[in-house]
């Protein structure tokens, strides 16, 4: 197991390097730059800007300097667009926010999704099954960009219970709507995966044997069915967790949370090379780590899997 983990981590290094180089080149290949505006900036002003940010150097040199700073100092450089700030500061401010609402939303999606899915599978073809399937389909067809404005309309404008946006770590009022809007569609997917996987497991041979032995249903589920049924769910959860904690543009856009998602999109639109690279690298590293974590969980749950 330990050799497996070490092997995976070693492979991760070239993967991240490739990620950095490819995204760096792609980004610089996009038309326009951070200082392209509809205002005609005189050439002498543009030259000063490019000199300050090193854009007057050839691309390979730029990449070399960038790699050196990132690898040796973990320094992502200054933002090209947010003139008073560095990328590290942007990340230090926005990532904790996204991590907070993302992790809570993830927990909510897993707990509600798995319970719904299990309930539906165990009471297959009953009222509970239909209800659970109905809820999860409903949640699936309500993407967060539809959910968010509806939530604000109901809870801010009509009921006046919750603030329509903003962020305070200490006040749960600000966290409720982003969490619900982010969690619903993930919750629906988790519920559906859980349900179908559980149904499959319940019709498996070893469950039939357990039933024939006369074991009570509760014991069959907790001891024999749950673990194997969770395998597909877990492989879905790895990337989902990363997607949720690295931010949703929609959530940041509608709730003005100040999270990382909106920075990512704006950086791409503004050609803020350094911010975009910083977030890309961070998401890349997190994705690799959580996929590894999912694989470890896999092996722990399923004795058939040995690395």
């Amino acid at each position, binding site marked *: 197991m330990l050799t497996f983990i070490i092997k995976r981590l070693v492979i991760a290094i070239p993967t991240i390097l490739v990620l950095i180089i490819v995204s760096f080149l792609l980004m610089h290949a996009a038309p326009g730059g951070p200082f392209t505006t509809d205002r005609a900036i*005189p050439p002498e002003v543009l030259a*000063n800007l490019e000199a300050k940010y090193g854009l007057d150097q050839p691309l390979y040199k730029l990449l070399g300097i960038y790699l050196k700073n990132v690898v040796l100092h973990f320094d992502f450089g200054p933002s090209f667009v947010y003139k008073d*700030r560095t990328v590290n500061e942007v990340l230090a401010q926005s990532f904790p926010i996204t991590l907070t609402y993302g992790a809570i939303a993830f927990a909510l999606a897993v707990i509600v999704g798995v319970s719904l899915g299990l309930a539906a599978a165990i009471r297959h073809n009953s009222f509970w099954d239909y209800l659970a399937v109905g809820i999860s389909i409903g949640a699936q067809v309500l993407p967060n960009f539809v959910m968010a404005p509806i939530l*604000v309309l109901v809870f801010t404008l009509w009921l006046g219970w919750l603030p*329509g946006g903003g962020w305070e770590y200490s006040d749960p009022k600000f966290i409720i709507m982003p969490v619900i809007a982010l969690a619903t569609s993930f919750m629906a997917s988790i519920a559906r995966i859980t349900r179908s996987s559980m149904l499959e497991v319940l019709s498996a041979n070893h469950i039939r044997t357990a039933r024939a032995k006369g074991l009570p249903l509760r014991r069959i589920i907790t001891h024999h069915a749950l673990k194997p049924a969770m395998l597909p769910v877990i492989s879905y959860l790895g990337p989902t967790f990363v997607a949720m904690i690295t931010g949703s543009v929609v959530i940041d856009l509608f709730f003005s949370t100040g999270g990382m998602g909106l920075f990512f999109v704006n950086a791409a639109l*503004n050609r803020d090379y350094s911010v975009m690279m910083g977030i890309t690298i961070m998401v890349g590293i997190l994705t690799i780590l959580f996929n590894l974590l999912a694989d470890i969980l896999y092996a722990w749950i399923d004795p058939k899997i040995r690395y």
Partner: protein
Amino acid sequence: MMNYRTVLRVALGALLLTLVLGTPAFITLVPANSAFAAPALKSGEKLAKEQVFTYRVLDDIKSFDPQLNSSVEGANILRDLFEGLMNEDPTGKLVPGAATGFTLSADKLIYTFKLRDAKWSNGETVKAKDFVYAWRRLANPKTASEYAWYMELMGVKNANEVVKGKVPPEQLGVRAVDDKTFEVTLKSALPYFASMTVHSSTFPVLQSVIEKHGKKWTRPGNMVGNGAYVLTDYRSGEKVVRVRNKHYWDNANTTIDKTVALIINDESQALTRYLAGELDKSDVPGGQYPRLSKKYPKQTLRFPRSCSYIYWFNMGKKGPKALKDVRVRKALSYAVNRKIIVERILQGGQYESYNFAHQKTAGFKLPKVGYATWSQKERDAKARALLKEAGYGPGNPLKLTLSYNTSEDHKKIAIAVAQFWKKTLGVKLTLANNEWKIHTTNQKNGDFEISRYAWCGDYNEASTYLDLLTSYSGHNVSGFSSPEYDKLLAQSKKLKDPNPNYIKAEAILADVMPFAPVYQYTGVIMLNPTVRGWPVNNLMQTWYSREMYKVAK
């Protein structure tokens, strides 16, 4: 008090006028230390207990550094945190700011500003050297400000050479004669120079603070300003909070205690939060003015805004052959039914446009451009005739591409225009939608046929528009070049009344048609009816929190 102020205002206006008209050699402008901007409570009004003004901004603030900021939203905040030499009053008239007034030398090249007794938010005195430091900083190549060109635009002596790095910043045409006297030397006379000192890139900054904190000097707590407010909280992507600066010279006449900018990207979300009472001011989403003004007549405001929307025709080297023919360009422009665009699509009281400069620009008399006076039927008939003359018709239809950047409104207008051109002229128009950076890059490189553009005035004077079409302007992407036009604009800088030149220049544009004017902007906002003092009559929408107040319901 009120009367005193009115008298002063009138006097200042008259003096400014004399200055612009340029008669006497040395004029002292304004008496010292007068409270110009303090809001006056009208009779029957009672101040609300809580004086907090909350408004929506679309995008995150990119910088709080006056010399590095390049956005309008940033400038709105900077005007609260810092104060430049001159300010604008709610009608857009120039009034004293950090300076009590200025004098101009006989050759009109040297402006001498007298500074008032004012303090920085840390208690230090505002001195002329702070302005010298800030202006040099703006031009200094090391600062690499995107707005360094503004110093060149103002015509400050040696600005261009400093930006190019040919001479050190110390040789910029500014100096501190003494602590209270700031002197600017211009390269050549510029009648509206003083009004350009309202711009946030010319605001003073304190050298000691910048040197102490470096890049972090703009953080709340570090920042020291000379404006009516200080920055107390900034959460990127969420909000900006500023509260009263007790050291501000006119703090006694300031009413709003706290101003909060909420960063809300989505405009309907912003509207919902406005309606829920979280905001005092928000924007009316495109096309919703008729509905909202009916439902909330006391809360919807509409006023002219200095921007002009056009379609560039590429008549240059890379442009299509058809657009090199003036008859084609004219036909296309004539066939745009501006009334439908303004009344059916935008629906916010925008102005149909047949010229370039915004018609409400100060001192600008809307020229009677020929085709503006015709009916649309006449324009369509003329357009058909012109296009036929140019050799296009059912057998040989004109094929063109119209590019616009991603936005619902641009798309709607482009679709409407494609319809007008198809129905009236049989033009086969392809619509090309590009993301902003690609759109502007294509425009600059001349890689377009017809391309959407909008220009917003930098200052309230028609040359901010008309200078764009000079052959030496970096903005002139159409390939239009007219020595006569260049001459008219160059000459206008020295004239007592430049307006006849502007009218002639507009006539040339209507004659050559390097672009089709489409519409001129209005601002449409939702404003809490308890908020008073929003400068609806200020075309540039230059606003200051200290000019507003909230009344009790």
